[in-house]
């Protein structure tokens, strides 16, 4: 074995990795070559000295600093990584809330208000219109002669009166078989219509604000 061959195996020899015949050949060379022998001996001494160097002990505060770092990083991890789904969920929720807020509040409020009002007023809702079928004879007996005989005309008149809440006539309309007339209260006399006092005639207990339809059968008196 030459010095070059030994040089190639120096690291393995110093580290004790040579075995068997290869180790024997290197040792045989070292016995013959003082230069290689000194060199390998020195290198072995270097290695041994390095191995016996005392281990550097870390400063006491290093552990504390590392714990602080680990705590901070752990917190970041849990916030960012561990709750990624939660963050996505929260983000989605936030966006949906922003999107729906203009719609949900009026819709919900309106619905609730409707339900409450319906519930409150449901019992008061009912028809206030009562069909009254009165046969009220209208005649002025002070002008009727005893010898006169009432004769019913064939044509009848249907009078529709619109009353305000105080029983006053605001509008009227009447029609007979041939024509239909509409007008306001002031035109009643113009059409030769003399109306009795409606509330008293109809014996109404309450003011009426709806329309009243009166069927009138005109009569004449003949001798």
């Amino acid at each position, binding site marked *: 074995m030459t010095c070059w061959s030994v040089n190639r195996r120096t*690291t393995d020899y110093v580290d004790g990795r040579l075995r068997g015949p290869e180790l024997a050949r290197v040792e045989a060379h070292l016995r013959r070559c003082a230069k290689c022998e000194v060199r390998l001996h020195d290198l072995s001494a270097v290695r*041994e*000295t*390095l191995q016996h*160097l005392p281990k*550097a002990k870390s400063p006491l505060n*290093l552990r504390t600093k590392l714990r602080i770092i680990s705590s901070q990083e752990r917190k970041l991890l849990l916030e960012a990584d561990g709750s990624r789904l939660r963050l996505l969920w929260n983000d989605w929720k936030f966006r949906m809330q922003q999107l729906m807020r203009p719609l949900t509040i009026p819709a919900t409020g309106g619905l609730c208000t409707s339900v409450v009002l319906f519930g409150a007023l449901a019992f008061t809702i009912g028809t206030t219109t009562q069909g009254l079928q009165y046969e009220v004879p209208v005649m002025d007996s002070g002008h009727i002669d005893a010898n006169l005989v009432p004769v019913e005309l064939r044509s009848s008149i249907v009078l529709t009166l619109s009353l305000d809440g105080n029983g006053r006539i605001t509008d009227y309309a009447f029609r007979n078989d041939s024509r239909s007339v509409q007008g306001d209260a002031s035109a009643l006399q113009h059409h030769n219509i003399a109306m009795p006092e409606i509330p008293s005639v109809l014996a109404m207990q309450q003011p009426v604000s709806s329309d009243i339809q009166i069927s009138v059968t005109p009569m004449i008196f003949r001798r």
Partner: protein
Amino acid sequence: MAHPFLTNSGKLSILAGAQTGVSEEDARILRGLRSGIEGAYEELIDRYEQQIFAMVYRLLGNQSDASDVVQEVFLKVFRGVSTFREQSSLRTWIYRIAINEANNHRRWFVRHCRMEVPMEENGPEHPNCLDLTPDPGRSPFEQALDSETRTLIERALTQINPVFRTAVVLRDVQNLSYEEIAEILQVSLGTVKSRILRGREALRRELTQRPDQGLAEAMA
């Protein structure tokens, strides 16, 4: 006839061929770190703080710098654990980060602080002995010799090429195998052996060049 999926060792070839990189213990710690479990962080610090500090201290030769670098290393480990692909062992990965950080720190120091004079004299020429753990297997006499020898070797370590110093420290101070060193430095086994040899040769030259003391005396 042997089962086609069985290797000579009797393991399933699929499993034998799979390169998981990390041991069960590493995998457990990694799972803990990724889940944010406090105990995993504690265990990682317990296992690697001292090792990493000792190595970085030997690479930089300064306790304060080593402390700063170790903090950077652990910060990178904590932040990078989610992207660690587990193709190497946890120790290899942490050592690789530590060496890169130490190299970065040394380059930064050379660029910015080489003209500054430190207030705290705890460099290799004035190591803080209180923070160094003596080898318990050495007698007081041997330890007295060690003190002198340590000063010589530590001074020599600072003088050699950082590339060779790293290889020597990993092998002779940290007692890592060639294979581990190759994985950490991401070089071939031949390169590892070459760097270790050249580092030791450089140390030998540094020590033998001392006019007042020969290597044999220094290493006695």
